[in-house]
């Protein structure tokens, strides 16, 4: 299983995976397991060279671009799962608080990808990095709605689409 996770997010998550996570009861995570410490399970272990993950920071492995910090909140150590089946993201809409990482895993038999609808966004997993069994993690640290889709099996509006709704961390 290949793990496609951003060095930046990985480092941040690893740094946050101790005892400093938020009160879980205050985190309105819908539809997926909230895993304190899941960052380590996902291979998030290298805390070197980043301390933040800004909105739209690319989180792909090997991306060494420095993260931006505008409006970002610290990572909370939570990792929420979204499963890519053939050809559906499950859950299709996921709601998390800022500072939460989303981990997508391709658990289908076919290739997929995770592409933001916002063409200017720099996060996402291309097809070659999201084959069956692959994972991709991205830390959402700024409130907002982040629609995405699989370009193979959807347009931005129809088909294999999903949305990450990021709520303020103080909710």
């Amino acid at each position, binding site marked *: 299983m290949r793990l496609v996770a951003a060095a930046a997010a990985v480092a941040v998550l690893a740094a946050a995976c101790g005892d400093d996570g938020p009160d879980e009861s205050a985190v309105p995570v819908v*539809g997926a397991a909230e895993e304190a410490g899941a960052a380590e399970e996902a291979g998030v272990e290298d805390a070197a060279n980043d301390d933040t993950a800004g909105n739209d920071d690319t989180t792909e492995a090997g991306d060494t671009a420095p993260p931006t910090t505008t409006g970002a909140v610290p990572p909370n150590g939570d990792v929420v799962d979204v499963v890519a*089946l053939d*050809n559906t993201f499950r859950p299709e809409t996921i709601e998390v608080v800022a500072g939460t990482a989303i981990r997508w895993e391709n*658990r289908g038999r076919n*290739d997929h990808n995770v592409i933001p609808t916002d063409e200017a966004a720099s996060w996402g997993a291309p097809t070659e990095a999201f084959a069956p069994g692959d994972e991709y993690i991205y830390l959402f640290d700024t409130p907002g709605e982040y629609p995405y889709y699989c370009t193979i099996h959807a347009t931005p509006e129809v*088909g294999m689409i999903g949305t990450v709704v990021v709520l303020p961390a103080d909710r």
Partner: protein
Amino acid sequence: MKRLALGLAAVLVLAACGGSDDDSGGPGTDAAVETEAPVETEAPVETDAPAATDAPETTEAGDDAGAARGDGVLDVPSEFDTIQAAVDAAEPGDLILIEPGTYNEAVNVVTDGLTIRGLDRNEVVLDGAFELDNGIRVLGANGVAVENLTTQNYTSNGVFWTSVDGYRGSYITAYRNGDYGIYAFDSVTGQLDNSYASGSPDAGFYIGQCFPCDAVIDRVTAEHNGLGYSGTNSGGNLFIVNSTFNNNRAGIVPNSGSYELCYPERESTIVGNLVYSNNQPDTPAIDVAILAMGNGILVPGGIDNLIVKNRVWDHDKTGIGLVPFLEEGANDDIPTPDEWDTPCAEQREQPPAEEIPDTLLWEAQFNQVIGNVLSDNRAGDLGVAGVGVATEELGNCFAGNDFETTAPAALETLAPCEGEGAGDWSVEPLDVLSWLTEIESRPPSVDYQDAELPPKPVLDNMPDAATAPAAPANDIVIDVDVDAIEVPAAPAG
């Protein structure tokens, strides 16, 4: 990590190689399917639509945006430089008429009720050049028909409908595409007919994630694919009829699995097909195709299917096999029998089970195998096996088949479709577990770009492509008379 493994089955046979058939893409046994689509033998349809060559001149060259003629026929490339431009300009009910040529396009369709038609099936070629993903992709647009053209060399699919109500693909040639040839996913009320698919690692033809599907595959040919037909979690008024599946890794393979929604696979009807020599070692192939290799009609984990009057011969494993499907890395638990009738639209809204087993074992249950003619299937013309449940408790039945061998032995006596069975289920059982160990020694997949395929055949065109009116898939009626379909004659030679 691919999470599939599998189980499988066996069968028996007795076949005959007799009469001839046409060798066109849609080998035509006599269809008994009500269809809105034009059929090879039907008379030309009277139409008010003008021929493509009669199109009025409306725009300056290249001015696609203003090119629509207002007659509901959009010509490519004389009026629109690209198919996509015509599709984007079209309105529901319009006909996009494509002149011969090679089109390096990946066409997206999001408008309901279009008919996209090539003027010549063999000379209108959409070519992905191993770079573009889907030849024609219909996303959420209901009633779109694709007719009379070729799609080849796409990295994903030749023609692909997803999330639609109403679809039809007729006289399509799908050749050397990187996933499926002709692919209907999460779609209902559809028809695929008179089409040909070769060289896809997954399936030549696929209908999946639908229940009830209300769909039919009729008079198609699939050869040299990983699977001839695949139907994951599909069924319910779904028919695969009058078609030919040969020289794939495996022939017709409907299965259950939680890697797509709407599980399990159930209530598919497979009637009147020619299924032979699905042992092909040099095709592109996904892992399931490699695992299922050597089987004619294989039902891994399918439920309540009807397999009737097919001619099945020359397979290294089973002719018709009912076997378990072992799914590793499950995404949900297996539905209980009281949930099998749940429509897909309802089931897909339900969250997965709170406790999900790592591995699921989907057993093939309550299938009926009746009146087939089978021969030379080396692990059994007919076969059935349970792994998590005793084989005799799965409720499958066999009757009226013409066969030589079964696994277990005397299967029609053990599990008749009427009355009580009798005998010893332990005699010559189908050893499906050994298939799991054999997979490592089977020929690996060949890259779809490089696989040696039969030359792309020149196949029959739809009748009157230039003059037939638009025929959107708005009123597909699935009304197959199973009783009227006979066991097809074997091809000459």
